[in-house]
C-alpha cells in the first residue's frame, strides 16, 4: 500500500478514488514495466535497490533511464529522450508511463516525510 493510501485510511472515499487512479494508471502498462519503474524511482530516493537491467531489452532500459530522471531532473528531460520512450510505448503508453513515473516519485516523497504517521497521529 502506498503512503498516500495509508494516510487516507480514515477517509474511505478519497482513499478509494486514489487507489482507483493509481490502479488505472498501472493497468495501462505492462505489469513488469510498472514494477521496474517503481523500483527504479524508489532507488533514486534511496528506498531499495535499483532493478537488475542485465536481461532487459533496450526499450525497457530506455524507459527506466527516463523514469530515473523524474525525481530530480524532470525539467532537463529532452525532446529526444521523450521521443525514444514514445517510440517504445506509443503515445497512449507514454501518457500512462509519464503519470506512473511522476506518481511513483511523489509517493516516495510522501513516504519520506512520514505522511502515514502524520495522518494517523491522534486520529
Amino acid at each position, binding site marked *: 500500500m502506498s503512503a498516500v493510501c495509508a494516510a487516507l485510511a480514515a*477517509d474511505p472515499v478519497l482513499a478509494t478514488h*486514489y487507489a482507483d*487512479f493509481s490502479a488505472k494508471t498501472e493497468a495501462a502498462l505492462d505489469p513488469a514495466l510498472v514494477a521496474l519503474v517503481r523500483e527504479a524511482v524508489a532507488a533514486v530516493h534511496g528506498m531499495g535497490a535499483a532493478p537488475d537491467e542485465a536481461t532487459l531489452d533496450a526499450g525497457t532500459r530506455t524507459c527506466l533511464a527516463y523514469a530515473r530522471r523524474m525525481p530530480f531532473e524532470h525539467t532537463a528531460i529532452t525532446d529526444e529522450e521523450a521521443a525514444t520512450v514514445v517510440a517504445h510505448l506509443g*503515445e497512449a503508453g*507514454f*501518457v*500512462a508511463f509519464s503519470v506512473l513515473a511522476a*506518481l511513483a516519485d*511523489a509517493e516516495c516523497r510522501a513516504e519520506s516525510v512520514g505522511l502515514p504517521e502524520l*495522518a494517523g497521529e491522534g486520529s
Partner: protein
Amino acid sequence: MSTIPRVSSGVAGEPAHFGSVLAHQPEIAESFFALYGHFWGSDVLAARIKEVARMRNARVTECGFCRNVRFEKAVAQGLGEEVVDDITDGYETSAKLTDAEKAALKFTDALIHDPELLTGDARAALQRHLTPAQIAELGLGVTLFLALAKALITMGLEPEVMDRTVLPTPAVLEAAE
C-alpha cells in the same frame, strides 16, 4: 524544458493540453477527474490552504500552467494575488499568510524538495495547526500537484505564454457518480 507537445491531442480538433492528452487513456482520465473533484469538493481542509500548497508546488516545480491557474473556491476564501505573491522563498515572515498556511507550506516544501525540512519545530507546528485528517488531505493534494506538474512538464505541455486564469474549481460530475 519543452513547450512543444511530446504527445498529440487525443481529442479531434483540440490542441494538446493536459485534458486532451489524457484522453489517450480515458480510464485514467475518468478516474483522475473523479479523484480531483472529490479532493477539491471536500472541505476537511480549506480550499485556500490547498491552493496555497498548489501555488508553492507550481513555483518549485516550474510548472507555468499550474502557476497561472487559480481556482474559484480558493479565491472566494480570500486567496488574492497579494497573498499569492508571498508564496515564495521567505514566506515564513509573511504577514498575509496564516500560521496554518505557513505550516502547510513547510510540509509542501518537505514533500516536494527536502524531507529534512519537516523535523522538530516544523513538524510540531504542522500538527498544532492541522488535524491528522487535514494533513492526510494535504498530503494527497501535494502528491497530486507534484505528480501532475511533472507529468505535464515532461509531456511538453507547458504553455509558451499564459495569462492568469481563474477556473471553476474541479468538481465531481454527477453523471460520473
